């Protein structure tokens, strides 16, 4: 019997509630919606961490990111992943990733791949930012104006408004197209590359991982995607204005909301483009006569916020549903009807589940377990799931940015307990009656449930320590140290330590 191949599509920032198969009203995912009629759909998939750097160790290596310690991120050198397991089983392997710096060889994601293209060299557009000039006479004058304006709230607001308008006028004069403004390669380019690779694979089973960034901000979808959705009013210039406006830090949520619908339309158009390109990939697989032997998986590393709790983008300052709830569709050969599981599913189980779907055993290092048997028949049992991150760890370049207290959420049924260790607080939400997590339940309400979820959190923390593989943790640290020594400045702490050592020996 021919061995099954595996295609894993991960879409950055794709929220579960923005695909039709999860009930989204705007028809932006016709291909995925149609595919879901012959697929296993997990409607309550929850990432093991967010954003990308706290999510992907679970997706690829079935490990909570923080289990390796907060000093290291990514996949540790020598750590088993879906790719290394399948490569070891004789699969041809390739990854085409649309320029997310956290999914690069630098963080170990190239392990197990025969072909690995992260498109980092092409991931930055030639867009100028304003003000570009520093040190000029105008710049000096501007800084003086700004300093003066900060004396009162009113003049400060006035300065910010005028400055924003000035920057918009300057940038509008550039007249760039959406293609020029886009920061990451669009899905069509990735699918082209993947198709070329697939053509050369011959009869061998394969594992293909494609990571798409189209819904990631700044939101610059291809013009064709906007037109296909009937959105003709948004020009490239308008899209640039909307992205700049959405990115403003000087205005509050109420003013930002004025343009929310237009921004969401741009985001949706990015998803629509992904859908169109996935349809094209499926056609190519059919032409190559590989479709009927391939497990085709579509999911995301995290979602995106659009002011539901006054936040934008996907910063790890909270673990709300729009950020942690992602779509998960698994189309296996031979499936002829929809199998829908609505129980919460932790993405920690994805890697072993996919390995079983293609008939391969998972390694003992995986923290999750295969749920393929249950998912393939649409009968995933209810079980609590955990998601976590280092609270507010936005920049991960420096170790100090990552050694922050945990933010952890336990989801069980309609209840969600969020524990914020930085201020030692825990908030319990009833998602059925409060889906936007606006009003935590009173401390004395649902006490037994709170205790139960706290016990689950405690067990998770214990396992996080006991399951740490010190050898892998050290290898990951050594990789970071090598990078710091060869490619960039040492961290402040390392420089201080070095200075101390030098003084002692010098």
């Amino acid at each position: 019997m021919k061995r099954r191949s595996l295609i894993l599509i991960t879409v950055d920032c794709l929220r579960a509630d923005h695909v039709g198969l999860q009930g989204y009203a705007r028809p932006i995912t016709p291909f995925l919606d149609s595919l879901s009629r012959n697929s296993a759909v997990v409607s309550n998939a929850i990432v093991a961490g967010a954003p990308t750097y706290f999510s992907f160790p679970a997706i690829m290596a079935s490990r909570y990111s923080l289990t390796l310690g907060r000093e290291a991120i990514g996949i540790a050198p020598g750590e088993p992943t879906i790719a290394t397991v399948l490569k070891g089983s004789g699969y041809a392997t390739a990854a085409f990733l649309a320029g997310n710096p956290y999914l690069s060889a630098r963080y170990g994601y190239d392990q197990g791949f025969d072909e690995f293209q992260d498109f980092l060299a092409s991931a930055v557009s030639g867009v100028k930012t304003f003000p570009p000039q520093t040190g000029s006479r105008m710049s000096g004058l501007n800084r003086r104006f700004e300093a003066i304006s900060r004396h009162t709230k009113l003049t400060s607001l006035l300065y910010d408004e005028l400055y924003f308008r000035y920057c918009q006028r300057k940038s509008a004069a550039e007249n760039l197209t959406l293609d020029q403004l886009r920061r990451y390669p669009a899905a069509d380019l990735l699918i082209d590359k993947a198709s070329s690779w697939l053509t050369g694979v011959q009869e061998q089973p394969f594992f293909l991982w494609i990571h798409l960034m189209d819904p990631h901000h700044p939101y610059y979808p291809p013009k064709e995607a906007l037109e296909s959705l009937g959105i003709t009013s948004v020009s490239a210039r308008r899209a640039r204005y909307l992205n700049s406006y959405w990115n403003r830090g000087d205005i509050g949520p109420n003013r930002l909301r004025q343009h929310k619908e237009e921004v969401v339309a741009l985001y949706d158009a990015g998803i629509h483009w992904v859908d169109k390109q996935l349809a094209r990939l499926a056609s190519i697989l059919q032409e190559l006569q590989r479709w009927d032997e391939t497990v085709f998986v579509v999911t995301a590393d995290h979602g995106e916020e659009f002011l539901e709790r006054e936040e934008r983008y996907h910063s790890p300052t909270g673990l709300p549903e729009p950020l942690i709830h992602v779509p998960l569709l698994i189309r296996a050969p031979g499936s002829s009807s929809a199998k829908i599981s609505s129980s919460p599913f932790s993405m920690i189980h994805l890697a072993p589940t996919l390995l079983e779907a293609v008939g391969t055993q998972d390694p003992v290092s995986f923290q999750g377990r295969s749920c393929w048997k249950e998912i393939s028949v649409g009968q995933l049992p209810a079980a609590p799931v955990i998601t976590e991150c280092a609270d507010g760890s936005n920049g991960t370049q420096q170790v100090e940015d990552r050694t922050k207290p945990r933010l952890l959420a336990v989801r069980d049924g309609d209840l969600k307990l969020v524990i914020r260790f930085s201020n030692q607080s825990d908030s319990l939400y009833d998602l059925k009656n409060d889906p936007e997590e606006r009003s935590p339940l009173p401390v004395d309400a649902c006490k037994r449930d709170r205790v139960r979820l706290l016990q689950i959190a405690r067990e998770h923390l214990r396992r996080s320590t006991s399951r740490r593989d010190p050898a892998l943790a050290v290898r990951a640290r050594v990789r970071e140290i090598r990078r710091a020594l060869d490619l960039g400045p040492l961290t402040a702490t390392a420089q201080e330590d070095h200075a101390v050592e030098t003084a002692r020996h010098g």
Partner: protein
Amino acid sequence: MSNQYRTVQLPEELCRDAEAWLKGRFESLESLIGFLLQEVIKDEGSKLDMLEEEIVQQRLKDLGYI
């Protein structure tokens, strides 16, 4: 750290290669090795893990569970 030192033995060839590499980066082989060991044994994450487990444990106590 104390001012007590320990002598460790390393292959001569490895030390020569490291000394050639460290020029402009570290003052001496000792400072390079000291830096590397300090960086590798850093484990703030484990300390935080234990602290966080204690916080949950305390919360369970406060709720009368323990």
